[in-house]
């Protein structure tokens, strides 16, 4: 049974594309057949984060409009043989996507994949609403920060009312993924606590991804962080989150502050 998962947030820059690439790669590593679909028409980036930017020939809009066949637009990952990418168009505008056309493409993808992961653009307009439209599950990427939490709340409201599932009286299964979590700042009370975010959004937690240089390094070289630095804390957090998506019970680890000896000494001296 194929699952359609939307990775969404409302706010931009919180880590949707990074998370889509990481979760997609982690699912593929665990043997699932996965396609990641970029819905950010005009501002595509998933191809870049996946390292496939020079292999894009056809895109989602070509397929929606019937210009290209799905098999012509799908790009197979060079590292994982059961991971595929359907890129967005860089030139068209988002109005080229139609509800009916997207529905047809999603239906076709459901036939041949275990997971269809839709990387939503920021905002609440057409691209974002179509990315969530056919979802069975949603990962709401949230930073522990007021504007991100507010936008996540808005997106949760849309997932509960504007999706096909919601219109049938069913529910999209929702998960919060906290990203860019800075343990040091949280400990100092400068960052919203995880339990506060969860309480406010009343949605279960899928994982906590630490703010990390490793995430930036991975996107610099166009490789999902779970493949580029599998032993890093960010990669392990994504792998745990992915296991939870697959229904496994994994103890939630809160990324801890890594204090170097020097930093400790300096702090003691300062205090």
């Amino acid at each position, binding site marked *: 049974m194929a699952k359609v998962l939307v990775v969404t947030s409302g706010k931009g820059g919180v880590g949707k594309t990074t998370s889509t690439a990481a979760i997609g790669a982690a699912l593929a590593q665990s043997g699932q057949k996965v396609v990641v679909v970029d819905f950010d028409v005009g501002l595509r980036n998933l191809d870049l984060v996946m390292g496939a930017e020079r292999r894009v020939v056809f895109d989602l809009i070509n397929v929606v409009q019937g210009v290209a066949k799905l098999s012509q637009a799908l790009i197979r990952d060079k590292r994982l043989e059961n991971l595929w990418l359907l890129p967005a168009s860089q030139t068209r505008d988002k109005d080229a996507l139609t509800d009916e056309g997207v529905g047809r493409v999603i239906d076709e993808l459901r036939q041949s994949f275990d997971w269809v992961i839709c990387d939503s653009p920021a905002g609440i307009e057409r691209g974002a609403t179509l990315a969530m439209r056919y979802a069975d599950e949603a990962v709401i990427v949230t930073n522990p920060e*007021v504007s991100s939490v*507010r936008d996540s*709340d808005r997106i949760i409201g849309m997932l509960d009312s504007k999706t096909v599932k919601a219109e049938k009286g069913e529910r999209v299964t929702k998960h919060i993924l906290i990203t860019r979590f800075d*343990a040091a700042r949280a400990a100092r*009370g400068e960052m919203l*606590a995880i339990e*506060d975010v969860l309480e406010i959004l009343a949605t279960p937690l899928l994982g906590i991804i630490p703010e990390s240089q490793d995430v930036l390094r991975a996107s610099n070289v166009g490789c999902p962080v779970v493949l580029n630095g599998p032993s890093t804390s960010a990669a392990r957090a994504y792998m745990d989150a992915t296991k939870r998506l697959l229904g496994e019970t994994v103890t*939630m680890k*809160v990324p801890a502050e890594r204090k170097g000896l020097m930093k400790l000494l300096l702090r003691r001296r300062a205090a």
Partner: protein
Amino acid sequence: MSMGFLRLFSSRNSSTAAVARERLQILLAHERGLVGQPDLLVRLREEILAVVSRHVTLDPDKVVVRMEKGKHVSTLEVDIELPNEPLRAAS
């Protein structure tokens, strides 16, 4: 997952994070009422109006449908003012 465990990592005493939490709770309580389900109340009102006016003559302006959002449950309040005249037979 235990919340008590996560709670260990939070410090809510006199921090800016605590202020953020308060502000968000107030703001979202307000916004959820406004944008949560914008067409639900309108639709409910129309349909209730249609059903009731099949049996009773009423003034559409005297029909108030209100949603009160609580922490655990929400209540739907329907207030219809009926004129004191004989009921119209359903036709």
